[in-house]
């Protein structure tokens, strides 16, 4: 055991394709680690291998080679221990027809050996705005409610590691904001969070660090603001007192004074300045397409 909630070491996952006898290399030599109280964003286009990575962590799929360790314990060696440490929100929505929200959360607690878990269940229902729906059947819920139910399910046993596979897909803007706040709260409690998402705005807001994955390979890993400054274009827009407007692009490495000096602009001639720091989205598409 150690204090690292999640560590992937040279993880490789290939799926055999029965029909053609070929292989899909879904994850190709991926390594990274997540610290307690950190939100790590895994970003990549469709089919990049994000869900495959999560499936090997949860033991839904076996690694082809390499290791996945949860608090230093290999997930294939002691799955009962590692499963107890983690909560998972799958990308695909579950749709059980038989039970109510409340029943599902009670069963889920039981699977983790928790008998009297009502206070925690009430807390989660409250936090995820599911309280008034607690006795509804899953089939009666909207997509966003189901998504929130899945998040509640993942948290009944207060895991120290949370795996979120596109948790805000299909959740409306207002609720997305409140989910972000909730995830930040969880992080502040010291939970380590692995988040995959297509909303780069989400990653930009939540994640200190991101890994960008394409075709199974990690092509960048580092702090979110570093990705942005390295790969996106900073723009500076100036509005002069004369009414003239000028813009400078690709000035990521330059400070404002430097730009003004280089272009021989006097500070006193400027009426307004707007700096466009660049977005993760732009950095992302540059990297993935290069």
């Amino acid at each position, binding site marked *: 055991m150690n204090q690292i909630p999640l560590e992937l070491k040279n993880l490789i996952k290939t799926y055999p394709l029965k029909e053609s006898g070929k292989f899909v290399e879904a994850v190709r030599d991926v390594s990274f680690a997540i610290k307690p109280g950190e939100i790590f964003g895994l970003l990549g286009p469709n089919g990049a291998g994000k869900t495959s990575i999560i499936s090997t962590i*949860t033991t839904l799929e076996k690694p082809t080679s390499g290791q996945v360790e949860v608090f230093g314990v290999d997930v294939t060696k002691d799955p009962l221990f590692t499963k107890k440490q983690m909560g998972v929100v799958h990308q695909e929505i579950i749709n059980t027809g038989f039970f109510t929200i409340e029943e599902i959360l009670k069963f889920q607690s039981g699977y983790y050996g928790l008998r009297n878990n009502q206070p925690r269940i009430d807390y989660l229902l409250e936090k995820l705005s599911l309280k008034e729906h607690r006795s509804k059947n899953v089939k009666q819920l909207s997509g966003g409610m189901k998504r929130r139910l899945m998040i509640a399910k993942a948290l009944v046993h207060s895991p120290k590691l949370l795996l979120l596979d596109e948790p805000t897909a299909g959740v409306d803007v207002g609720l997305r904001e409140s989910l972000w706040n909730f995830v930040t709260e969880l992080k502040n409690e010291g939970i380590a969070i692995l988040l995959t998402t297509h909303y780069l705005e989400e990653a930009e807001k939540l994640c200190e660090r991101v890994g960008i994955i394409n075709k199974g390979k990690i092509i960048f890993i580092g702090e979110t603001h570093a990705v942005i400054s390295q790969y996106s274009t900073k723009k500076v827009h100036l509005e002069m007192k004369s009414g003239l407007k000028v813009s400078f692009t690709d000035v990521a490495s330059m400070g404002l004074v430097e730009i003004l000096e280089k272009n021989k602009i006097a500070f006193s001639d400027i009426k307004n300045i707007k700096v466009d720091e660049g977005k993760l989205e732009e950095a992302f598409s540059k990297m993935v397409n290069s």
Partner: protein
Amino acid sequence: MIGFLTLLEKEIKRFLKVIIQTLISPIISSFLYLLVFGVSLGNSVQMKNGVPYLSFLIPGLMVMGLINNSFQNSSSSIVTSKFSGDLEDLRVVPITNMQIIMAMGLGGVIRGFLVAFVTGLVGYTFHYFKLGEVMKIEHPFWILFFVLTGGLTFSFMGIFIAFIAKTFDQLSAFSTFILLPLTYLGGVFVSIETLHPVWQTVSHFNPLFYLINGFRYAVIGFSDVDLTISILVSLLSVAITYGMARYALVKGSFSRW
């Protein structure tokens, strides 16, 4: 342990939600079987030892209800979970394969037992009105034994098939091509002695034959097969199907259809 009990509770609650369908359909089908075979045909069938055909038929129908429902319960539980995607959840939570198999197995046994019990009630009512006397139960302990072993065998079989099945059709093909012939050739309706010698030999390779006869012995006090052999074959069937279920859980797919 709490994990196992929770899963068992879920399995039971699941079929209790559809308890009416679960019990009404075996009531209707056993009623029809008894009416057609037991009462109409039964008058012309002569059993050895002077046992009325109705007394012979009732335990057979009870076993048929038991195994069909045990099989149905575990296989449909898994298949619907494959559809809805929550079978994946079962892989993610800290529950062992053995706990999953035992919880689903026992869930199936309980449903199978309920159906067998209701079938028995219908049968006993028929028996009383047709023959004017209450049918005796000879060996209650062995009834429990064969309910447990027979139910587990077919629940485990349901787990096995549902896990390795790739489509819904494969599952129903198993019911039609394997389960149904096994039942009919296992001696639910007729004593093996009335069959052609070829089919008699075939029947001896049918584990269900020993189960039905063991159960029939428990109810009416004798059958086509020695009790000891029935007991041994039933225990062996539980062990083998458990192994198959375990294999399916390890090798089969938890992912959704």
